[in-house]
């Protein structure tokens, strides 16, 4: 069996280099075909009827007028008369027609008799939630009462972070063609290898009948795992039309209303500490909602988990609003915001620098040294020493401040299988049923294979995005890179071992004395006893070498190729206009450990992106519900606000690439960097103003409300 471990950091030739993503040219030239771009012959377009009411019963549905419209191919119902709808935007009917325009006309022609029922869509105020709030039970550690009574300083604060949506630019949807026992399915998905089984269950066919293809997808962020009801109904509409392909992609309003949200989180937090800043007690009464199912408690206290005395109470609030889906680092950004806001306010009450408070309490984290180092590095990069001042201290109407947020994440590699084929002409294929969400996965796979085979990346053909390739896990929880890098490494070395066996006699040594370097097979350390890769391949005979490699999560710790556990610290500097309440980003610093970094270029891009997402959620982004109609008030991109190019300020990413982290193996990066930024920005606003804006996004109205009559000059 080959030695699978990664080559030492200094000896890698491809991994660790800053490589342009392989699909960059085809994407930036507009030639990449996303599922929503596919227009197969005979395509039917669709339009969806959704519920205008947040809570209602359907008495009857009349499709006659809609069916009579020329060009309508079929109409399928998601629900039947008698059904009770629990949120506005819920799927009612899907129309397939020759054109989108016709399908939309047909949607307008569907007549439904509704019985409208009372709804609840607001969750900011727990007292108003009534029976919609369900207590999750109390968790107590130590003796919080005693600890609070003995504390020198007690901080009490209330903080909130509202529901946001995923807002994938490519909406949820698919193209699908169902003819006889063959289903060709092109979903925009994070789960190439598992989505077919789910669809098969929904439409009652064997999974073997479904061929999934997803070469590119336009954003998922945790919301694009299942085939969804519209996947199933579009399949049935295709079958009903005699096998014409059907395209269904949600319109923007529906995308923002039902295709997934991140749950809100509100909390009243009490922290007890000694005069020197040592934290002794924590109490939180929190509530959250991610739709009709309520919302779970985020992991608070966050990162500083070992506060000795703790009491947590949580309530899940059921709302008549679109359901939650996993949102990049589920529950962590909320937990970081709640915890780091309260810690910063505690520091203010102690007349302490929050950086000093976090250092003082680093022992309460599970990785004290890592956090201490990262706090130091981030402080250096943002110039904390010179930028920090007592909260609200300063002159003029424009105030600057700095703040901190911290993060932790798992990110161990998922189950993944890879097949590497070396053809007798020397060409190499690498196949995985994986997907590239824009993370650079495709590029990283190629880099691992090239590194392992001693070839340039141009000699490797990476094939992903199809469920006929060996199964790889869905891309969620930052598990992809650990999984695919390990399976690709093992498959590559297994294939290479077979090639060595074929070549060894010609080089007059045992197979285990060979190595693959610079497109050659050579006797270890002896470039003079070598043959070219192509010559070596010719020794194979007519059959290609095909070898598998697998990442088995339970074996990962022993093998050491991938692991889990990533820490991160982010620090922000903002400028607040105290007259208009407008907050402007000046700088965001992200210090991130993520083990062995395969491609620093795309890895940094992920962190930059996570920082910008944090700016969105800290300053702009919020799903606003209308209490009267029960609908989302801003299901569009004008009023569902995301940051633009002028809004981001300077962003500094420090990947913390060093031997000590590298030795741990590959760790997923997608989520850990998307956690601490919101807290850092909210705390920077606090430092600028000396006043807590308790709820994000920190919009100008919230700033002005928090300032009240306070004047700055």
């Amino acid at each position, binding site marked *: 069996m080959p030695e699978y471990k990664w080559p030492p950091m200094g000896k890698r030739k491809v991994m660790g280099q800053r490589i*342009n993503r392989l699909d960059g040219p085809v994407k930036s030239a*507009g030639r990449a075909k996303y599922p929503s771009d596919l227009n197969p012959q005979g395509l039917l377009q669709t339009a969806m009827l959704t519920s205008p009411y947040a809570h209602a019963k359907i008495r009857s549905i009349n499709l006659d007028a809609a069916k009579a419209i020329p060009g309508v191919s079929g109409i399928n119902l998601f629900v039947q008369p008698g059904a009770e709808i629990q949120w506005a935007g819920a799927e009612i009917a899907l129309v397939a027609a020759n*054109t*989108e325009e016709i399908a939309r006309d047909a949607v307008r022609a569907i007549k439904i008799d509704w019985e409208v029922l009372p709804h609840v869509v607001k969750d900011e105020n727990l007292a108003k939630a009534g029976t919609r709030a369900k207590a999750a039970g109390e968790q107590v550690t130590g003796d919080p009462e005693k600890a609070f009574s003995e504390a020198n300083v007690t901080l009490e604060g209330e903080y909130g972070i509202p529901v946001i949506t995923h807002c994938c630019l490519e909406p949820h949807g698919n193209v699908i063609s169902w003819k006889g026992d063959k289903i060709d399915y092109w979903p925009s998905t994070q789960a190439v290898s598992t989505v077919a089984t789910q669809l098969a269950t929904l439409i009652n066919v064997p999974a073997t009948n479904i061929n999934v293809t997803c070469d590119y997808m336009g*954003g998922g962020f945790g919301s694009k795992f299942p085939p969804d009801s519209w996947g199933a109904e579009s399949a049935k509409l295709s079958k009903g039309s005699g096998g014409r392909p059907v395209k269904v992609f949600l319109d923007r309003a529906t995308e923002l209303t039902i295709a997934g949200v991140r749950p809100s989180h509100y909390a009243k937090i009490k922290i007890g500490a000694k005069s020197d800043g040592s934290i002794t007690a924590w109490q939180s009464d929190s509530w959250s909602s991610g739709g009709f199912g309520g919302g779970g408690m985020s992991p608070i206290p966050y990162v500083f988990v070992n506060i000795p005395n703790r009491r947590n109470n949580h309530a899940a609030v059921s709302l008549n609003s679109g359901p939650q889906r996993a949102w990049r680092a589920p529950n962590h950004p909320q937990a970081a915001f709640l915890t780091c806001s309260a810690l910063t306010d505690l520091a203010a009450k102690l007349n302490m620098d929050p950086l000093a408070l976090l250092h003082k309490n680093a022992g309460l984290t599970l990785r004290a040294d890592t956090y201490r180092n990262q706090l130091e590095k981030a402080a250096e990069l943002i110039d904390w020493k010179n930028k920090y001042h007592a909260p609200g201290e300063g002159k003029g109407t424009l105030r600057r401040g700095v703040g901190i947020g911290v993060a932790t994440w798992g990110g161990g590699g998922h189950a993944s299988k890879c097949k590497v084929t070396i053809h007798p002409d020397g060409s190499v294929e690498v196949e995985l049923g994986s997907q590239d969400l824009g993370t650079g996965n495709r590029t990283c796979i190629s880099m691992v294979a090239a590194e392992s085979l001693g070839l340039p990346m141009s000699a490797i053909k990476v094939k992903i995005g199809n469920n006929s390739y060996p199964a790889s896990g869905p891309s969620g929880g930052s598990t992809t890179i650990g999984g695919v890098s390990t399976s690709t490494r093992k498959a590559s070395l297994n294939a290479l071992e077979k090639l060595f066996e074929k070549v060894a006699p010609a080089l007059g040594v045992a197979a285990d004395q060979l190595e693959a370097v610079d497109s050659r097979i050579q006797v270890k350390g002896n470039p003079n006893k070598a043959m070219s890769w192509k010559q070596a391949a010719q020794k194979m005979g007519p059959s290609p070498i095909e070898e598998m490699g697998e990442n088995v999560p339970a074996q990962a710790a022993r093998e050491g190729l991938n692991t889990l556990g990533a820490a991160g610290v982010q620090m922000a500097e903002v400028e607040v206009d105290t007259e208009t309440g407008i907050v402007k980003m000046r700088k965001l610093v992200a210090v991130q450990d993520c083990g062995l970094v395969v491609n620093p270029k795309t890895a940094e*891009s*992920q962190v*930059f992106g996570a920082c910008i997402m944090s700016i*969105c959620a800290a300053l*702009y982004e919020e799903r606003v519900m209308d209490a009267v109609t029960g609908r989302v008030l801003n299901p569009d991109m004008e009023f569902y606000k995301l940051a633009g190019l002028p809004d981001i300020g300077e962003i500094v990413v420090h990947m913390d690439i060093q031997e000590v982290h590298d030795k741990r193996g590959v760790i997923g990066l997608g989520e850990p960097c998307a956690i601490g930024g919101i807290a850092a920005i909210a705390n920077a606003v606090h430092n600028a103003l000396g006043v807590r804006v308790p709820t994000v996004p920190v919009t100008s109205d919230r700033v002005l409300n928090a300032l009240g009559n306070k004047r700055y000059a």
Partner: protein
Amino acid sequence: MSSNNDSEKDKRAQSGFSRRSWLRGAGIGTSVVGAGVLEQEAEAQVTPKVMSGEVEITLDINGRKRSVKVEPRTTLLDALRNRMDLTGAKRVCDRGTCGACTVSIGGKIVYGCSVLAVDAVGKSIQTIEGIATEGQLHPVSAAFVNNDAQQCGYCTPGFVMAAKGFLDKHPNPTVEQVEKGLAGNICRCGTYVGVRKAVLEAAKNYKGGSNA
């Protein structure tokens, strides 16, 4: 799109006050920025044409005349994507906010979702598919690749078109001009750091101009 109104934009940039951020704070909105020029042109037409059902029109796209059947309500974006298989321009917000559908009409950068196909008849339309010579990357696209100014890539063709249109008017932009000039495009993955670098790099390698 911002590059249509440079003088106004520049003034705003100098004053350090952006309408976008003010509106954001005030929580109120505005009509489409990008379609402004075309709206003026549409208003200038004296006789309204009444049409219904599908009509065949000829569009001048990427230097080729192409016939296509559209309805009067069909947007240029939907005509391109659904009826002509030109899918580089993406449909994201479909309401003139995000810029993913950016194309050029008569050398002006517009949102394809905010122009009716029938209003584009007789004008020279350029899409992302038409900016590069066969088999080569346009220098702006190449700069996006070099600076990793893309992740999922769904906003990228719109960004490239907007950047090209911007550079045609501002061949030597400052960072501030790049930020303001491309404020009409939205990315969800958060590629703006790369975009900022890419546009500045492209400015060096691509000498745009109104005839480029």
